[in-house]
């Protein structure tokens, strides 16, 4: 466990924030695909990230020692890279498939949001209470980076390497998400978001599309959880309260719904800069006052955004027809047969 980290304290700190940024960006991209493009309000998002984190942890921790050891869990094994990340991704996907099959039934969007929020609460309670599952509320510790042995250090022992590793994975996935969003499939998602009945009356299978985007988003969430847990080395219910989902939603709202550039800005602003600034402020009042006020400000920011810039700092981009490489010269008028 003893990683001789020679990096300066500042660069270590910034590196951690950047790793978190990668994880948050993955989350925000995934949530934006679901919410900004497909209009699915996944208030249970954090559960899928948690699932990925737990699975990535247990498949690398080795067989559980059972009740006698200080942590107990299911699925204990020693999977080598990249299988543990694949397992995390798969966990997110499978869980979202299961949840999606009932939660995505056709209903009012606000009901759907409420149901997913409830799913989030149920999951938290089950995992906290059911110790044999993932060691209950104590959570899992001692998770290592698969390349730890190779570089003789834990992820926090060689943070730059880990950042590079996470950044490459993050970049590839984010580019993939952007590409999919701009594809005809992404366009179908937006049609579904704008008018469900019309989209289905034009031949789009809404049920399937919604499930697809839910599972894909869940898979990315699972992956992000895996990346996060390998860095911090521990994971417990404290890390995935349902409020965490709202932090990511706020990032999207602030940045710009449906615009990935905006989402990136939002991710930088909300979960990173905004939540770090209070650490630099001198302490006021009793301990914890700053933290309470911080959340009050998150709430106000959220409300003000909805009031003044409901589409975020950088709103969704208009995709001009010319982007599709379409001919602008008059084509011969063509009948319907």
């Amino acid at each position, binding site marked *: *466990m*003893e990683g001789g*980290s020679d990096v300066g304290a500042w660069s270590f700190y910034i590196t951690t924030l950047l790793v*978190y940024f990668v994880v948050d960006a993955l989350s925000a991209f995934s949530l934006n695909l679901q919410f900004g493009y497909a209009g699915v309000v996944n208030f249970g998002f954090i559960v899928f990230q948690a699932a990925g984190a737990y699975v990535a942890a247990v498949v690398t921790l080795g067989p559980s020692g059972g009740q006698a050891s200080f942590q107990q869990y299911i699925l204990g094994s020693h999977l080598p890279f990249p299988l543990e990340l694949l397992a995390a991704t798969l966990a997110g996907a499978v869980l979202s498939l299961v949840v999606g099959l009932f939660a995505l039934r056709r209903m009012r969007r606000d009901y759907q949001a409420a149901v997913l929020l409830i799913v989030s609460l149920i999951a938290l309670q089950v995992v906290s209470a059911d110790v044999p599952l993932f060691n209950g509320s104590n959570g899992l510790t001692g998770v290592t980076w698969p390349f730890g042995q190779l570089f003789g250090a834990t992820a926090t022992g060689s943070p730059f390497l880990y950042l590079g590793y996470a950044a490459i994975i993050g970049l590839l996935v984010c580019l993939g998400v952007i590409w999919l969003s701009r594809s005809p499939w992404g366009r179908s998602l937006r049609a579904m978001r704008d008018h469900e009945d019309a989209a289905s009356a034009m031949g789009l299978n809404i049920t399937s599309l919604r499930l697809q985007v839910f599972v894909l988003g869940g898979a990315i969430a699972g992956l992000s959880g895996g990346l996060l847990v390998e860095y*911090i080395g521990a994971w417990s219910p404290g890390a995935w309260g349902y409020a965490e989902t709202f932090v990511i939603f706020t990032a999207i709202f602030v940045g710009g719904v449906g615009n990935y550039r905006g989402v990136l800005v939002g991710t930088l*602003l909300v979960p990173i800069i905004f939540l770090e600034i209070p650490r630099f402020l001198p302490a006021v009042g009793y*301990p*914890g006052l700053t933290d309470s006020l911080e959340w009050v400000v998150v709430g106000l920011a959220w409300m003000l955004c909805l009031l003044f810039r409901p589409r975020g700092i950088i709103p969704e981009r208009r995709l001009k027809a010319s982007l599709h490489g379409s001919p602008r010269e008059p084509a011969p008028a063509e009948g319907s047969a």
Partner: protein
Amino acid sequence: MQARKLMVAVALAALSTLVAACGSTASSGKKGSLVVAGVIAITGTSSFEGSNQSEGVLPALYEINHAGGVLGHQLVYKGVDTRGDPADALPAVQQLLATTSNLVAVAGPGTASAPTIVPVLNSAKIPMTAVAGESAYDQSHYQYFWRLFPPDSANGTAMALWAQRKHYTRVAAVFGSDAGSQGDLPGVLASLQAMHIQVVANISLTPDQSSYQSSVSQLIQAHPDVIMTESDAGTAGTFFGELKSLGGLVPIIGTEATYTTPWLTAVQNAIGPTDFHQYFTSLITAPSKPTAAVTAWNDAVKGAAHQLPVSVNSAENNPFAITYYDGIITLALAMVAAKSTTPSVYNNYIPKVADPGPGKTVVYNFAQGVKALNAGKQIEYFGATGLIDFNKYHNSFGNQEAVTLSASGKTVSLGQVSVAAIEAVPVKGVA
């Protein structure tokens, strides 16, 4: 294009805020003062940990600073909020390390964030006095990790020994399902098993329920003659209130964690001071007898009273606070002994100023220690929690004491469970 400009502007603004903010932090505090950081949950569900800590660290700093500080430096306390979550703790601690060049010691980390934070602090070569009961640290190899706190299993064993002494034969375990409470449960169960005491009910309380009536009736039907318990204050208040109103009150033995003001207040309110005094016992880390160190601790609490989040009385009786206090005094004495506030230098002196040894001068507070050290003597700090003796894993824990609270709110000692007796119980299953 506009979007890109905006992004750059935002990034610049953010960066300048960061720089400005850290500039202001670096220059805060008096010149020459040194920082003792408390890495602990200040908000969130484990926020009581933060209160426990400041109740101990602030009196320690008061005492040290009033005795002239450490080698002429004043010590200041800085709370670092982990929110009880490793993911939040990591950047918080790194920010601390990055912005605090005058950091000399850390109080904490607490249970939830220890696995992530201990390696980071250890790499940064900052001595820490952890209050994390996890058995994983019973055999720690971290050079900068120090624990003056019994592992969870020790407290559990003491509870079982106390039950045996009181001839209780049917135990009901009532524990909250939160992380802190669950951490202490295995030690209790394993100790009871080792001593062949029957567990007639093992009830888990999910915090913040509207009612625990079903759990209460489950408990009553098991007919225990004692309840062993730990949970958060609100849950305990509700549970024991309902237990009393349904007429099921039996003696209660609480873990060390129950002996803190919020818990005591909540349960006392729920069942009334008279019943509380009659039924409640807690096993806490305790001095063998009132010593000069306890007097020093009480004085320190009074001196720091205006800074404390709770009343003097409740801080004085808080075993966690006393543990933190002893830890910080020990670290400060080590700095004096090493004639250096450099963490990597004074770290080696920590056992030297605490562990007992032949020919050592016993000191009971910081000022005495400084005086003896300046006189060229070797010292042994005998703490408010009693004898401090670090083993090779940097662990030190003392006797346990059974206490209750009088109707007027004073700690009343009921008897002792010695380290020797605890170590004699062959507890299995808790590594």
